[in-house]
């Protein structure tokens, strides 16, 4: 068993163990509240992957998570911890909904493409701003990303309830709904919108970019060892800001789909914590774009099962949030086990 295979097994085993431990902890937590743990676990599985309907529900939730997870994973390759994905998503959603107010959007697929490009550009600008503040002014990207997210959420609410409000939206302030021809439909034979395909494509593209292109490699060098990157003359500022912009673009696209495929207009429903859930997805996937795809499906599945827990057992709607919180804490704590996995009889790798 070569050290490399062992490391690969370990990379997969640690997150799986951590999620299993989170499920166990959540079961105990539920039991403490008087809910039957076995039934909780069964419903989590049934609600996520029990039948075709729940599969579709899970995939539906996984689509935006893939894109918002990239907003964490790509900057992480450049050594930054950007967690403002919720903000980039909101900017993307706002850009999509604002386009028909700004110019005459052509009907049909060209118009839809234009809306999504606006979402991508909006998200990219958001990400680039975080990267630029970090590189040029030394502002910690984690804190600035979160603050910017709260800032744009307030701007979003201002615009949606003020200048861009559709007078017809009485109880729930919204922008004008997009025209029918601009909306994004579902995949043939399924109830899942096209965002899923684009999420998978984005993860695959990000993975190829990181592993096969010089630019992607240079980004990983900057993230892995900034001093070495400086010595060989890599343009760290440009690479870091580009990585942040790419991540922001992915989350912005998620916002575009939320408007054009799910809500048909920008309103408060867009702000539902998808950006924050994406952080967890990226960490469980260890910031590897390809690994994001299955992780997003599993965690999206738990999200889908949440409503079943609520309906069948009367558990609070925040149940899944608690489960994901346990998972996040445990996944990070599991890092301590890295390099400790040994084949019986071989030497410890952490000593090497």
């Amino acid at each position, binding site marked *: 068993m070569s050290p490399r295979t062992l490391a690969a097994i370990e990379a997969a085993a640690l997150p799986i163990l951590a999620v299993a431990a989170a499920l166990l902890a959540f079961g105990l937590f539920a039991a403490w509240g008087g809910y039957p743990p076995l039934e909780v676990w069964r419903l989590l599985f049934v609600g996520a992957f029990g039948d075709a309907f729940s599969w579709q529900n899970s995939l539906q939730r996984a689509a935006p998570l893939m894109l918002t997870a990239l907003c964490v994973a790509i900057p992480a390759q450049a050594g930054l*911890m950007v*967690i403002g994905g919720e903000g980039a998503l909101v900017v993307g959603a706002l850009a999509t909904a604002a386009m028909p107010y700004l110019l005459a959007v052509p009907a049909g697929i060209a118009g839809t493409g234009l809306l999504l490009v606006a979402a991508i550009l909006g998200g990219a600008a958001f990400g680039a701003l975080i990267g630029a*503040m970090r*590189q*040029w*002014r*030394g*502002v*910690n990207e*984690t*804190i*600035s990303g*979160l*603050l*910017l997210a*709260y*800032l744009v959420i*307030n*701007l979003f*609410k*201002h615009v949606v*309830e*003020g200048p861009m409000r559709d007078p017809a939206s009485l109880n729930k302030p919204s922008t004008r709904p997009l025209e029918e021809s601009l909306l994004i439909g579902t995949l043939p034979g399924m109830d899942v919108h096209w965002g899923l395909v684009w999420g998978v494509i984005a993860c695959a593209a990000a993975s190829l970019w990181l592993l096969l292109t010089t630019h992607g490699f240079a980004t990983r060098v900057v993230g892995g060892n900034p001093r070495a990157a400086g010595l060989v003359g890599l343009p760290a500022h440009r690479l870091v800001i580009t990585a942040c912009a790419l991540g922001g673009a992915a989350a912005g696209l998620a916002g575009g789909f939320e408007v054009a495929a799910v809500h048909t207009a920008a309103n408060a429903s867009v702000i539902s914590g998808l950006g*924050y859930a994406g*952080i*967890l997805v990226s*960490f469980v996937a260890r910031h590897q774009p390809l690994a994001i795809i299955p992780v997003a499906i599993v965690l999206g599945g738990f999200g889908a099962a949440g409503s079943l827990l609520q309906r069948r057992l009367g558990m*609070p*709607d*925040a*149940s899944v*949030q*608690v*489960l*994901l*919180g*346990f998972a*996040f*804490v445990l*996944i*990070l*704590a599991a*890092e*301590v086990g*890295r390099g400790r996995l040994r084949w019986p009889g071989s030497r410890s790798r952490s000593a090497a």
Partner: protein
Amino acid sequence: MNDIVLPVLWAVLGGAIRVGTPFLFVSLGECLTEQSGRINLGLEGVLVLSSMAAFGGAYLSGSAWAGVALAMVAGALLAGVHGVLCGLRRVNDIAMGIAVMMLGTGLAFYLGKPLIQPQAPTLQPIVLGGASSSAQLQAALSINPLFPIGVVIALALAWLLANTRWGLIVRMVGDSSDAARAQGISVNRVRTSTTMAGGAIAGLGGASLTLFYPGSWNELLSSGQGLIAIALVIFARWRPLACLWASLLFGGAGALGPALQSVGINSAYYLFNAVPYALTLLILILACTPHRRLQGAPSELSVQR
């Protein structure tokens, strides 16, 4: 003109203390934690969880001060999760902070579900403006009873960190863990205890949210006040007394939106809500420098590396 300016001015001044008190406690807690060289972004989660605990404690026991005590315990326990786990090898304190933020918020929403409707006993204000005839002045001078406690904690922290053996140990662990280890000090134990103490102090901020202002529990209670407070510590250059002034400044900025709304200026409500975030970002952009660490920053702090 005076009809608008004066009420707004009084509301902002009163709001500086009312809105600023949670900022004060969270920034003091974070200041203590960061002095020992660790950053705890989880204080946002601590704030939400402890505000729920305070409300629950006050509701079940019938005493607001029992709620305050429970908030401190809940804050210390959740921060303790961060403190203990960050002591493990390879565990990143910034990422763990985000995880603790999510866990704390999730637990608060889960456990706080039955608390959304009921009324709990609230803390009685300290009324300083009783002699004044102006209602606005009276409202502005009804002070959160936790605020003086915060001032005392700020003074005590400043003195303890500067003048005592305990303060020296905390600062040494924050500036050079190697030096501390050479002295036979357990770095992890010091950091875990400052993190827990920081959580307990931040818990007081949570208590002031549910037991004084706004005075009830719901899921929209905290919208990043904990994070603003963490950024405030950078603005305050890790000095407890500067945290006090910074919190009052931000409390005033945060009170501007509701103050204008109360005199009928509604149109830009969310824009005024955005002011504290924009102000924090601006301050960070001006205060930070790309190439050297900030003056006053503990050198072990991971945001500085």
